[in-house]
C-alpha cells in the first residue's frame, strides 16, 4: 500500500475566491479534502454592539454594511422590526417603493452571485456581463437615494425619498432589458457542457440536513423545500403580487443555479407588478415621533433576503436605543454547512461549492 501524506492547506483569508476574508483550513490528501474548517471573524465589526449605543435611525446606515450586496433588504429588516414593535403602519406608497427596491436589489445580488460563482469555476465573461447589468440597477438606486451600495434608504415609518420623475419608467425599461439579458445568460451557461459537468451532482445536500442546519434562501429551496418567507410568512405587501417560489429537486450546485436564475425572473415579475400597481400620490412616511422611543418588548422578524432568511431580533427596554439587537444573518447559517459539504470533495469543487452557497463575509462576520 502506498503511503500518502495528508497536507494542511490554508485557503484564505486572502485567497482570490473566498469572496472576502473567509479562511478555510483544509486537510487534503492529494487533491481530495479530508476535512475543512472555516475560520471567520476577519470582518467582524461588532454591528450588534455598536447598535446598542445608537438610536434606531442611526443603526440603518450600519445595516447597509452587513450584507453589502443587498443593503435594501437589510434596511428593511431593521425598519420592519422597529415598526412592528412600535405598531406603525406604513403608507402604501412607501411599501411599494420598498418592494420595488428590495426586489431590484435581489436581482442585483443574484447577478453578483452568478458572476462570481462562474468566475470561481473559471468562466470570465459572465462575471463582467453580470456586473454590466447590475450597474444599471445601481444607477437606478443612485438616482433614487444617492448611493450605489450603501443606500440608507429606508426609515422607520417609510422611505426617505420618493421616486424621482421618470424613475418608474426607467424601471420598466430595465425589467424588459433584464429579461432579454437573462436569455443571454442562459445561452452562455445553461447549455455549456463544462458548466454542467462542474455543477451537476456536486455539493448535494438533503433537505433534512438543510433544515437542520437552518439553511435558507436558494440553499434550502434547491433541496426541494418550498419555503419562501415572502410567501409563507408574508410581510410587507408581498401577498398582493403573483410570483412563484422556484424549488430544486436534488440540492446540488446546478439546482442552486437554476433556483437563483428563476428567482431573478420572479423578482422581475414582482417589480413589474409593483410598478403597474404603483399608487398615485400619497405620503411616503408615516407619522412617527421625531425621537423614536420603542416600547418595551421583544420582536423577531424574518424576511427573505437574497441569501435567505434575514432576521432581526430586537429587545427594547423602552429607550430610544435598542437594549439588544441581533441579526439572524443568513450567510452565517449557510456557511455552517460547508465542512459537511466539502468532505471527500476535490479541491476544485471547494471553490465551486463555496461559490454556490453565496456568502457575503460582511454578513457572516456581522
Amino acid at each position, binding site marked *: 500500500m502506498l503511503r500518502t501524506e495528508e497536507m494542511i492547506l490554508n485557503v484564505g483569508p486572502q485567497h482570490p*475566491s473566498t469572496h472576502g476574508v473567509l479562511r478555510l483550513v483544509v486537510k487534503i490528501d492529494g487533491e481530495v479534502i479530508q476535512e475543512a474548517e472555516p475560520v471567520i471573524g476577519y470582518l467582524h465589526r461588532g454591528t450588534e454592539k455598536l447598535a446598542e449605543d445608537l438610536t434606531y435611525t442611526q443603526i440603518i446606515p450600519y445595516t447597509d454594511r452587513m450584507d453589502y450586496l443587498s443593503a435594501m433588504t437589510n434596511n428593511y429588516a431593521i425598519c420592519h422590526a422597529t415598526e412592528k414593535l412600535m405598531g406603525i403602519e406604513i403608507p402604501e406608497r412607501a411599501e411599494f417603493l420598498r418592494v420595488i427596491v428590495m426586489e431590484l436589489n435581489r436581482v442585483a445580488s443574484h447577478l453578483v452571485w452568478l458572476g462570481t460563482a462562474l468566475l470561481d469555476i*473559471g*468562466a470570465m465573461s459572465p462575471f463582467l456581463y453580470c456586473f454590466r447589468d447590475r450597474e444599471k440597477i445601481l444607477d437606478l438606486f443612485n438616482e433614487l437615494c444617492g448611493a450605489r451600495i450603501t443606500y440608507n434608504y429606508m426609515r422607520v415609518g417609510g422611505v426617505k425619498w420618493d421616486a424621482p420623475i421618470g424613475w418608474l419608467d426607467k424601471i420598466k425599461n430595465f425589467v424588459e432589458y433584464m429579461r432579454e439579458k437573462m436569455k443571454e445568460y442562459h445561452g452562455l451557461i445553461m447549455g455549456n457542457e*463544462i458548466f454542467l*459537468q*462542474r455543477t451537476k451532482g456536486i455539493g448535494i445536500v438533503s433537505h433534512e440536513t438543510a433544515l437542520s442546519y437552518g439553511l435558507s434562501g436558494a440553499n434550502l429551496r434547491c433541496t426541494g423545500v418550498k419555503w419562501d418567507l415572502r410567501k409563507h410568512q408574508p410581510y410587507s405587501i408581498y401577498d398582493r403580487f403573483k410570483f412563484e417560489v422556484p424549488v430544486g429537486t436534488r440540492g446540488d450546485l446546478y439546482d442552486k443555479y437554476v433556483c437563483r436564475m428563476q428567482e431573478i425572473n420572479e423578482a422581475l415579475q414582482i417589480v413589474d407588478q409593483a410598478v403597474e400597481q404603483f399608487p398615485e400620490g400619497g405620503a411616503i412616511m408615516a407619522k412617527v415621533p421625531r425621537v423614536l422611543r420603542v416600547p418595551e418588548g421583544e420582536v423577531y422578524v424574518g424576511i427573505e433576503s437574497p441569501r435567505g432568511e434575514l432576521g432581526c431580533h430586537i429587545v427594547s427596554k423602552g429607550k430610544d436605543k435598542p437594549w439588544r439587537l441581533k441579526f439572524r444573518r443568513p450567510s452565517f447559517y449557510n456557511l455552517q454547512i460547508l465542512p459537511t459539504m466539502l468532505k471527500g470533495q*476535490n*479541491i476544485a469543487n471547494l*471553490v465551486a461549492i463555496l461559490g454556490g452557497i453565496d456568502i457575503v463575509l460582511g454578513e457572516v462576520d456581522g
Partner: protein
Amino acid sequence: MDIWVILGPVIMLFLVLGFVTYAILFERKVIGWIQNRVGPTQVGPWGLLQTVADVLKLLIKEDIIPRKADVGLFKLAPVLAFIPAFAVIAVIPFTESIKFADIAVGLLYYMSISSITIIGVLLGGWASNNKYSLLGGMRSAAQMVSYEIPLVLSVVGVIMSAGSLNLTEIVHAQQTGAWFIFPQFLGFIVFLIASIAELNRTPFDLPEAESELVAGYHTEYTGFRFAFFMLTEYTYIFGMASLITILYLGGWDAPFGLTFIPPLIWFILKFSLFVFFLFWLRATMPRIRGDQLMEFAWKGLLPLAIFNIFLTAILKEVSFLSHYF
C-alpha cells in the same frame, strides 16, 4: 560559417518577444471587447505599449526568493521551462524559404523537446515550497502526461498521409492534395483540444487556476523569473499556433489560388486565427475539473485518436480517396 546561423536565432528571439508582447496585448484587447470593455488604452497609443510597460515593471521588480525555497532549483526552473519552448521553434518552416532547421524528424523533435518544459514547471512548483505551487506543478505534470499521448497519436494520421515527419514535406503534401483539416478532421479536433490542454489554456488551465490555486506553480515567482514563465507560455502559443497551421491548415499554402498574397502573410493569417480562437475560448469557457480532465483525455480523446489512425489507414486504401490521404 554562415552569418545567419548566429543572426537567425537572434532575430527569431526578438520576433518571438515581439509576438509575446503583442499577443498579450491582443489577448487583453480581445477579452476586453468580448466583455464590453475597451481593454488597455492608457500606455501608448491604443495601449500599444502596455505590455512593454508591464515587462519593464517585471524586470525592475525586486527579485524575491522565499526563504524556505530550494534556491538552486527555484532559479533553474524558469530557465528550464523556457529553453525548450524556444528550441522547438527551430524546426518550424514559416515559408518555403524562411526556416532554420529542416530536419527529417521535425515533428518528432517538436513533440519530444516541448515535453521537457514540464520538468521546469514541476521543479518550480516543488522548489517554491508552497502548497499551491506544488499542487499546480503536480496538476501540470499529470495534465501534460495525459494529453501528450492523444496529441502525438492524433498527428499520426497526418504523418501517414504525408508520409513524412518533416514539416516542410507535410505542407507540400497538403499543397498537392487538400489541407489536412478536411481529410483529417477527427484528428484535427483531437489535436486542437489536446494542444489547448498542452498550452494550459482555458478550459484546461488547471495548473494555474487562479480561483483555486491562486496562481498555481508560479505563485511564488516575481519579477523576471515570473516573466520567464509567462514568456514560456506565450512562446508555446507561438509554437503551437505555427504547428497547427502547418499540420492542418496547409502552412503557407494559399487557398483558392490567391497566390498574389505572399505565403508569409497567409501563414500569419492562419496563425492569428488559431491565436484568436484561443483567446476567444478563454473568454467563454469555464474551467474543467482535474478528474474530468483526465477522464476526457484517456476515455475520450485517446480512443478517438486511435480510431483516427485506423480510419486514415483504411481510407488511404480506398482508391478514389487516396489522393487526399
